[in-house]
């Protein structure tokens, strides 16, 4: 089972993790393209704050995920091997009903928008941390300059 561990006091609030995550999940991976696109930057890791203290808020890939229970399309699932919770890559497709956003107590799932000129079959997707399936190390962990994020295997 994989999950992220956060060493809170090392965090500087520089938000390079957010940037790297957003770029990794964009189609062009070019900063300017993503910045100018309709949705802008949509990271799946959030550097929130308490006053001025930075606090990274991450998806925990919960043992009993509420988003999985709430999903009406059956697309949000927890992988049996890796433990990663994700709504992409399964037979069932996300229809943008936003039940998972209502369910997640950490607030780490976001909406994305539909391009209204697209064909009728496109649904706005719910987006969340997928633990970067195409990379050996998640983009946020790689990008952090101060060793705040680590991957824990258990």
């Amino acid at each position, binding site marked *: 089972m994989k999950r992220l561990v956060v060493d809170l006091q*090392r965090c500087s609030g520089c938000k390079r993790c957010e940037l790297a995550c957003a770029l990794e999940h964009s189609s062009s991976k070019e900063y300017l393209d993503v910045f100018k696109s309709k949705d802008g930057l949509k990271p799946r890791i959030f550097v929130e*704050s*308490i006053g001025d203290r930075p606090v990274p808020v991450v998806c925990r890939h919960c043992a009993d995920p509420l988003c999985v229970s*709430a999903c009406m399309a059956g697309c949000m699932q927890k992988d049996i091997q890796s433990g990663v919770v994700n709504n992409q890559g399964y037979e069932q497709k996300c229809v943008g*009903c936003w039940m998972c956003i209502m*369910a997640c107590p950490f607030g780490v799932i976001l909406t994305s928008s539909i391009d*209204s000129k697209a064909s009728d079959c496109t649904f706005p997707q719910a987006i969340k941390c997928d633990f970067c399936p195409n990379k050996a190390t998640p983009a946020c962990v790689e990008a952090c300059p101060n060793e705040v994020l680590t991957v824990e295997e258990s």
Partner: protein
Amino acid sequence: MHYLLIGGSAAAVAAAETIRGLDKEGLITIVSREKYYPYSRCLISRFVDGRISQDNLYFKTRDFFKRHKIDGILSTEVKKIDRGEKKVILDNNKELSYDKLLLATGARPRLPKIDNTDLKGVYFFHSLEDASLIKEELVKITDAVVIGSGFVGLEAAYALARRRLKVTVIERCSQVLPNQMDTIAARIIQQDLESLGVEFIFNESAIVINGEERVSGVTVSDQDYIPAGLVILATGTVVNKELAQEAGLATENGILVNEFLQTSEPDIYAAGDCIEIQDITSGKRVVSATWFNAVLQGKFAGSNMASFSKRYSIGVGIQNAVQFHQIPAISYGMAMLDTEDPHSDYEVVAIEEKGVYKKLVIRENRLCGIIFVGDISKAGFYAALIRHGVDISKHKSKLLDPDFSYAYFKEYDFSEKPPYKKVNLCWDSQYWWREKVRCMGI
């Protein structure tokens, strides 16, 4: 151990999966009245307007029953429960015995007291059956009327509007979604649908359906005639509690269960839209609704049935997440209160600007309801604050600030292992400005 689950939707399937995870050997049987493999009822509107195919409606893969060794009996109804003998009698007169029984019979659409609802072209919007028939017919239709502007009614209206029908929605109350949203949020959602050409008639209950064999139109208030080739009845649901009633189980508006989801008969459990739950935000008992509640109840019931005791204590009645056309909206908990409502011990905080409406209802320093329209980010976090009854008195003025988030409650794990390592005292103190360098370990 034989587990028998009546119903083939969210609650039953969740229970079955949970039981199988805990009991590798027991027999699990699902009996469903419908002829379809378990599908997501909530998605049928997207099927009607063609955005998804029937295959996309199944929320579990087609090998689900096989994979989990579940005996799935479709197109079969349970006629009677014999509590004494611990068996049920099916409509083909076959009998099935059980050790533990789950009632997940859900609800059926309510037939309104309107004449001529038996004409051709008049449908409910409840099952895949309804949806398939509607989908076939609407290619020949130009005008439709939807009676009722609850969730189901608006989903139907949206689906038909997407298929370029001229849709008129007739509603008894003065706003859309009268049981889910307040007047301001309802107005925003109404405008979202009106931008597609949907028309609304409010405060109307005198409706007559016209036609000979087939529906031709609808007359409202004995004067206005609206031509329609299709009429959708979306006037609420009725709990399928007859089986329970006849078996002598305790029911009121729904089947009554304890915190382990047991009915008045210990070996009979119930979950989903057919039961009543204690809504922690209003303190009242309501009939359970929403897919999310059904799944959770199914899981808890299944766990209890497999002898792993789990208390189901946090039920919330109103939970809605929706995006019809452009505007997402979420309402959760006790959020119906209008700002003029004279409930003096409730505080309402609301902002409305630039197409975003957010409302929080607070009582005794605890959040008890939210409505977010336009911007639904972090709605689940606020919902968790409601569910867990978290004391937000210290943050009252900050609740709707853009930087208010889960971070302020990072000591609460909300039943999930927290990812944060222990921090030095200096991080938490007022001298962080001085200790930053040491904390960061540069």
